[in-house]
């Protein structure tokens, strides 16, 4: 089966700054891909390439097998998009927005839209301008879901929102997947959210994909070790498989990629022992990859 999103070796720079460098990313139908990365790492830029708002300098972007720049109508009619930015026409009322959106999307499902409005506790006749940020995010979500897009693109959807709205958004993602096997790609800095709803997780750093893996596999292959060295060490211990380390003196917590057996041999090589081991959680993995050298300066 062809992937829904197929990004091949794209590179994009803005002036001297390279925003994306040789990024390859694929997403199968019916999966949820979580895109994580530090601020300015290129998440939004990547998502905008999928929307066709940016053209890659090199490489190709295919969404549903089509080029979003060459054929924006076919691609965009199947994409639901919600971003942190408030782009809705705020002078409209909710019902006006619904009518307006209907004109763009032949697949608009008014019954579903009404159902969402009810579920989210929105007033159809209130102006968007007067709504709170959370309510407006719900309206945005309604507008992005009601035409049942094949691909839901969420760019930091829950940034700065309260937990209840966040839960609505997550619920929407879950339902989108459960309903019709549609596809979701979302970027978030809340790793807990990614952990819950993503099948796959891609980490982007300085415009490069660090890893793009099945979430369960990722967790199962990363261990959080507490390594006790025989001598105090001024710098974090480096050994085969270690991704990142934090600590000081003799005791270091290390995120290790590999099996327990591998960890034991690797640690033994640097004359240290494993005091404690468990699976690394997503936060630890993320931090380890963000600061691979480790240590607190």
């Amino acid at each position: 089966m062809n992937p829904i999103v197929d990004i091949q070796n794209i590179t994009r720079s803005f002036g001297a700054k390279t925003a994306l460098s040789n990024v390859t990313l694929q997403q199968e139908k019916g999966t949820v891909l979580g895109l994580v990365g530090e601020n300015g790492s290129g998440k939004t830029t990547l998502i905008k390439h999928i929307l066709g708002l940016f053209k890659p300098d090199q490489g190709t972007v295919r969404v549903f097998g089509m080029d979003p720049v060459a054929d924006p109508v076919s691609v965009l009619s199947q994409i639901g998009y919600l971003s942190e930015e408030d782009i809705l026409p705020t002078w409209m009322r909710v019902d006006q927005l619904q009518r307006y959106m209907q004109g763009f999307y032949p697949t608009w499902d008014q019954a579903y839209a009404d159902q969402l409005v009810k579920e989210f506790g929105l007033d159809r006749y209130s102006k968007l301008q007067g709504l709170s940020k959370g309510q407006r995010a719900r309206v945005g979500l309604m507008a992005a879901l009601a035409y049942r897009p094949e691909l839901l693109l969420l760019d930091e959807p829950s940034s700065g929102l309260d937990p209840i709205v966040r839960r609505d958004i997550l619920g929407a993602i879950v339902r989108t997947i459960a309903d019709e096997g549609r596809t979701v790609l979302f970027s978030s800095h809340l790793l807990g959210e990614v952990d819950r709803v993503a099948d796959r997780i891609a980490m982007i750093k300085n415009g490069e994909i660090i890893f793009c893996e099945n979430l369960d596999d990722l967790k199962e292959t990363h261990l959080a070790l507490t390594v006790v060295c025989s001598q105090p060490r001024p710098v974090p211990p480096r050994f085969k498989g270690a991704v990142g380390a934090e600590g000081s003196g003799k005791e270091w917590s290390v995120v290790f990629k590999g099996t327990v057996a591998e960890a034991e041999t690797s640690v033994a090589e640097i004359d240290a022992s494993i005091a404690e081991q468990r699976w690394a959680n997503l936060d630890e993995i993320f931090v380890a990859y963000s600061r691979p050298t480790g240590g607190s300066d």
Partner: protein
Amino acid sequence: MPSGNIVRPNQSLIQTLLAFAYPIGIARRRKVIESTVALVVAILASYGIKFLAPGLFPSGSPKAVKAMVDLLENFPAGVLFGILYFQAMGLGSPEINTTDTPASLLTQRTFVLPVTTKKLVLIPMLMASLFVLVPAILYAVFAILPLNLHVPVCLPLLMLAYTVCSSNSSAWMMSATAPFGCLFLPIQLGAPFAVLIGWINGYSPVLLSIGVCVVLLVSVLSALAAAPQARISSRQLGAKRATGNLDKQKARGLTRVMESDSTPFPSSREAQYWIETARNIHVSVPMVIGVMGLIILVFLWISSSDWMVGIFGSNSKVQATTEGLGIGGIQVGPHLPLSLLVLPGAAMFCFMFAANSKVARTITLGKVSNEDSLDPFIAIRPVTSLQITVARLKSAVKTAVNLAIVVTALLFLWTLSPAKEGLHRGPLIELLSAHAKFRTWLLVFVVALSLPFVLWTCLAGEPIAAVTGSRKSRVGTSMPIVIAFFTVVPILGGVIIASLDETHQLELIRTWLMFFLTILVAIKLIVAVVGALRLRRKALISVPELRTGAISWIVALILFSFVYECVIQPDLAGLVFISLIVAAILPMNRILWQVLRLDESRHR
């Protein structure tokens, strides 16, 4: 010195004061400074010429000189309006901050003064040269050569240059300034026309000034009404930023992971405008203009009463000039109605510019005025750039048609008003009620329609930018060339015409205009072809669409020419036809290039 028609210093002064009082407190202080410099230069130059004129040309002045002197006499005000217009449109300040609207300046009184010598000296000089030196050169030409030209011959040339220059720079304005600035500027666009045309044709400048004043007042009042809202919005904007930062900090503290990438959409930072309440621009624009027009009409009715005439004096020059301005079968004798046309046309501009607001942007699928920017909400919708452009165009057409209907109705009302002896309304009423009733009204409608529409369509400095194909060359680089083209060519034409004897002049003017327009057509056609090819190459338009477009354009042209053939005197039909091609090609080019630009900005 032909003393009868000249020197009404007090009236010039009134106008000057009127014009000068206006920008203070609205425009930026820098602009006021620049304007002042330009004003001084302009007035000095203008009056200098006037004082030099008698010495240069002592007695037995030909009519042309009289006319030019007459024209020049009116220039300080026109110059000033022009300067303000240019100033306000941000010619000297392309770095204008979009939130820095005149409305916010009105309320906050915070002026930023990044004045550079270049801007302070060069730009006013440019203004001054544009508005003073050009007529001065023309004047010199007419003064030195023994010729006999009517004002009406020179005036269209000047107006052409003026319109083209201002319409080109308005593209700059649109890209640079905020909607509120735009609200005032178009009125300035119309004001000099109104005053010039009205005054040259002997209408009391005081009355005209008051008329202009009313319109200005309306715009100022509406800006004031909108100001608090704009202020609130900007405050909200600030608050939003603050909370955004707070969230960032929270996120940092809690998860050690940062929030979103900081490359937002080209988000609309502008404040909210009062036009937001107006849901439908197609209705609201003509409606408001209709109201404005009615105000002017009532004012004119009052002004034509005996006691007003007693105060301001009647129009002695009416008889002399009514014959001149007519072209072919169009006898629009009384020029006040024409200025009435200009004023609402200009006022419409203000709404078009105010259409930068979110409402209008949504209705028209983007900024009406700025083809480069696309609302982020629209950018991700499944519509092609062509559809967006066509939708915008449709919206403009609707507005123009509605507006034309309103203006025609206003003019009709005007003709119904009781005619007073010695007043300027006589000829039009006679004309309309006597012969060629239908023709005249058709033409009035077409003029009313074409004015806003053509103004709208020639907004961007297309020709040069289009040929070079560079986005960056858009206004900045093309402007001087365009200005040069549209000033040098008329001057050259004027010199050639002037060098010939009287009997051949009219014929030559016609030929020359033909030549001028043909060049225009050629350029525009090249531009159109280049645009179409690019569209095709980018697969933004299908071959059938391209074919259908070309065919319908030609058919429309033939149809138009047929209509005009029936309406216009046969010997002028050729000229009108070519003008029509120009007029028709403008929107075509605009569509082609707008699609390309839009697409460029959409997929960056």
